[in-house]
């Protein structure tokens, strides 16, 4: 693998890292799909993990949470439009490892090598962004609505209470300092669950600026040498069923009714909409 592009996918828990992997693996192998990067044959390696992910994805079942112990590396050989064959590896790391970097201020040594990848995909779930909220403004709203504040127990400070954008900025800062610093890197920011976000009528850069303004400022002001772009991605196209709960949803059935599973995918950059989930990877590989 030495010398081949490695792409690390980072993101807080439940941001959609595993779903993205499943969708990529399906799409590059789907007969007749039109993608910027194409499947270039199997190489040595074990595909059991990623095949299982893709199988669940095709069936419209939610991915199980990535095991918190042990990291699985998904490797695939892809061919660029220019005919160059590249082996790309994606470590499938649990989101808890990333939230632990913020909360515990440490990272497992086993993750360090993967975090040294020169190409990074950062996934932020656009539907579960935790915004900072201030007492004085909430109280003004409650007062305006004639609601008296309820008696509640006070909550002590804990790092997990921090807004999403603060935790994500710190993750990126970690990758640009100390032992994790490897020089300039490419960064694809993917705002996942785009099907839930797009109703606001904003393009991905506008979503970044309005829903994650601290992250937007950090990247735009260029203190750290990131070369970055932002996409909106819906790797599922809608809600998937929770198999463990025996869910059967009409919305999922509608997704399964589409002729090709890849039709569920939506990749948005600026005003351009596509189903090609390899576009951010093509840009990262450069």
């Amino acid at each position: 693998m030495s010398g081949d592009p490695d792409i690390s996918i980072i993101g807080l828990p439940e941001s959609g890292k595993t779903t993205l992997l499943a969708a990529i693996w399906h799409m590059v192998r789907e007969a007749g799909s039109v993608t910027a990067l194409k499947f270039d044959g199997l190489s040595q390696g074990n595909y059991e993990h990623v095949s299982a992910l893709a199988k669940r994805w095709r069936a419209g079942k939610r991915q199980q949470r990535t095991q918190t112990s042990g990291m699985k590396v998904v490797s695939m050989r892809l061919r660029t439009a220019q005919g160059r064959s590249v082996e790309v590896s994606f470590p499938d790391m649990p989101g808890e490892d990333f939230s632990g970097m913020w909360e515990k201020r440490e990272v497992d040594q086993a993750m360090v090598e993967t975090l040294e990848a020169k190409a990074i995909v950062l996934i932020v779930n656009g539907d579960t962004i935790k915004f900072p909220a201030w007492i004085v403004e909430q109280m003004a709203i409650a007062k305006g609505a004639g609601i008296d504040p309820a008696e509640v127990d006070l909550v002590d400070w804990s790092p997990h209470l921090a807004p999403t954008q603060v935790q994500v900025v710190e993750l990126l800062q970690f990758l640009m300092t100390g032992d994790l610093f490897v020089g300039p890197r490419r960064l694809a920011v993917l705002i996942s669950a785009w099907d839930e976000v797009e109703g606001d009528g904003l393009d991905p850069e506008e979503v970044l600026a309005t829903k994650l303004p601290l992250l937007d400022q950090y990247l735009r002001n260029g203190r750290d040498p990131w070369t970055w772009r932002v996409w909106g991605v819906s790797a599922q196209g809608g809600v998937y069923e929770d198999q463990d709960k025996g869910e059967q949803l009409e919305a999922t059935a509608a997704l399964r009714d589409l002729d090709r599973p890849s039709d569920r995918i939506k990749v948005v950059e600026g005003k351009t909409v596509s189903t090609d989930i390899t576009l951010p990877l093509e840009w990262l590989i450069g």
Partner: protein
Amino acid sequence: MASPAMPTVLNLSLGDALDREDASLLQCRRISRTIGIIGPNDAGKTSLVAGVYDLLQGGPVAGVGFAGSSTLIGFEKICHDARAASRRDAPHTERTSAGAEATFFHLDLRPTGGEVMSLFIGDRSGEDYLAAADDLARAGDFFEIRRADVVTLLVNGEHMVSSEHRHEAKSATPQIVDALVEARALRRGSHLAIVLTKEDCVLASANADRAHREFEELVEAVRDNHVGYLGEVGSFIVAASPRDVTLVKRGEGVDQLLSFWLAAAPAPRAVLRQKSESSRMIDLLDTNEDLAE
């Protein structure tokens, strides 16, 4: 001999407010401004520091954008009691412990069209500063004030409209400046921002006009007393973390203060000693000041 076991985890930076040495190391990296904030207890010192950071959560402030910070955990801690996640029904701020060494909050900021600048904001207990007015020897410990490009002196707006505290607030403020200048804890050429805090309390009072007038008189008196020693003396009125947003908005006036902090030319430094036993910037600064005086 068995080789030492490899550590299983890599420790990352703690993200808390910086001690003097860590702040000095960061200060060497890019253009920086150091701010010392002085004020009696409950004047709103911590709220002001938290308020600057919390305004950036919503986007650039006065054309100045966030570019990074080494103290995100420290900021998050001091912001918590004004955030809804604390489940409080009114903003609250913990006091900085008396007697503790000063620490620094760090922000990298980029003014529109300009270079990234580092801002270091010193934090020390208000009690310690008040004590210096009575005992000049204690002012020598205030390294964060000696190194400050802009010293920011807070006047508690709530006290300025209180019949019980009003005269004390008016007297104590110039006395602190006098003591710091006398002890040379405030460097020659340092800029001074005098800030009336808690504007929400002031505006809610029947004595608001009087408080504003007396505040401006106080600022003029400090200017007159220290003309030729201090650099620019600016006056500001802020509501960093108001208890009510009927009359002011959260963070009102903080943008103008931030602009003043960043625009201020660095206070003049003395010529470096040719040989120093220390390589720390703060120590170099301290010894140079000794030479300069």
